[in-house]
């Protein structure tokens, strides 16, 4: 049995995908195996290349913090984010207010 899910518009076959990933990983391991294994451990050949500079001891000194991730994305959507963050006031009265507002809109739509 080769189970396939038909969505009515397309289909999904998990085992084909798993076979695909196995082949892909085998290829990746093969190419990795082509690398040189004769490097000298514990020498400069074994060190991280950090733009030619000395690598800091503590990761804190050269890690990219999470808040810097997707800076371009958030910068491009600055207007959207400003409005979105303004709505998230953290005030409990606002939480209830949004709920009543939504209830009022839905009630008006259903009743009218």
């Amino acid at each position, binding site marked *: 049995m080769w189970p396939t899910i038909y969505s009515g518009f397309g289909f999904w076959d998990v085992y084909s995908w798993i076979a695909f990933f196995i082949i892909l990983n085998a290829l990746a391991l093969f190419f990795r195996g082509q690398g040189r294994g004769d490097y000298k451990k514990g020498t400069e050949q074994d060190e991280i290349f950090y733009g030619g500079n000395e690598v800091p001891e503590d990761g804190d000194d050269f890690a990219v913090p*999470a808040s810097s991730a997707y800076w371009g994305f958030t910068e491009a959507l600055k207007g959207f984010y400003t409005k979105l963050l303004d709505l998230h006031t953290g005030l409990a009265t606002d939480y209830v207010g949004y709920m009543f507002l939504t209830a009022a809109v839905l009630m008006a739509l259903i009743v009218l």
Partner: protein
Amino acid sequence: MNWSEHLPALTLAIPLLGAFGAPVAGIFGRLVRNVWFLLFSALTAISTLLLWQYVSAQGIAIYVLGGESWSLALPSGMSLPIRIILQVDAFSALMALIGGIAMFAGAIFSLRFMERFSGLDKFVTLFFLLTVGMLGMELTGDLFNFFVFLEIASIASIGLVAFWRDKPEAVEAGFKYMLVSIVGAMMVLIAVGILYGRYDVINFAAVAQNLHMGLAEKVALSFVVIALAMKSGAVPMHMWTPDAYGEAPAGVTCLLVAVSQASLYGLFRVCFSLYGATMGSGVVAWTIIILGMLSMFVGVTMAVIQKDIKRLMAYHSVSQIGYMFLGLGVGLLAIADPRALGEYGMTAMQGGIYHLFNYSMYKGLLFLTAGALYYRTGTRNLNEMGGLARSMPRTTIMFVIAAAAIAGLPPFNGFVSKLLIYESTFAVHPILPVVAMVTSVLTLASFVKVFQTAFLGPARERFRQVREVPPTMVAGMAVLAVVVLGLTLFPTWSLANMINPAAEALVDKAGYIKAVMGGGF
């Protein structure tokens, strides 16, 4: 009477006994209390599994508490369904099973996670009471008891969210959750009161049999939809979720995810089994679809910019709820049209219910991995984490499984349910799957961020002593990881045996009514 016929009641009685026995077990020491906690959480999970098996084999289970018959016959011959009835169809049973698995995983994880804190007898009691509330909402056959179980779940949740009461943020989160929960519960109570006033009964099936759409019914429907959408965490009523999910202990957050699904269950039980095609217009269905779209997009865009790992995951909960709203909303839209239901409605509902199951498992797992990171590093701030994959390899594997599943990467289970939702909702309007796919891409982006910043990158000096979490915490995560992998590797079996029966039960309003009412009253 076969003992298995008592399973609906046992599924509630076991965690209830677990709750009230916990302080007594606590008298005999930490070990006895932990054994009690583990034993009763395992029994609860087994009971939900047996209940699901029973319903799958026997059909809808009806259980009358304190009586043999559901009705009270009057001298005139008229009989009213006034007793407390548990009504378990395939959808209810699946929801109970999901809740059972989530609570079991949360309980195993909490054994070590919570051991450094005091007041654990109260913790175990509240944990079991929350389970009772959740399961009660899913198994009850009447509206008022649904409200009662909703309140039990809310009160227990408030206690657990604010469990670390020495942290001002936890107390604030608990207060906010209490406020919105009380307002939501009042809305549900008003709706129950309206329907009771109109039909003199509160049994789901009895009300559904007699319901015809009038002004009062419309008002009741609005209150229920909004209150339960809020409890599920739908935008724009989602703002309690990052507070509550963020501040609750990790094992509790895992359970809270399943509890929010119980509210979603209530919403769809009311929409499909109580109102169904009598709703007439598509206003409610479109409202649910629009709330779903908003939840997906707003949830994920807010998640992308978070740096607190639990708040990030909480915003993803909001976003994932949107998929279920979209799938089941499209099913609701097609409910009155058999052709539309056959062409895309049932597929959308299957996608929605499958996603609900997937979401409860991988989201619970994600919260547990966040808890594992917090347990070892003492921080939830992603800016302060890094390089933890080397010292916490098992947690890393669990995180990768859950993150790949939530992002909908093939071949993981999240992809299957999302595919069903994309393809079926396209038939309604192309913009629906476009928003869903954009959300999926942003979900992947934000979990890549978490993986890169917490697990990869250079090791931090202050985490040099960090090591893997204790085996029981790994076991808690493994329970959910195994279910995620099972849903991934056996999607055909899951759809045929778990999801399809649940979707069919949800649209079969006549069958739901007939199971209790038979020939009517």
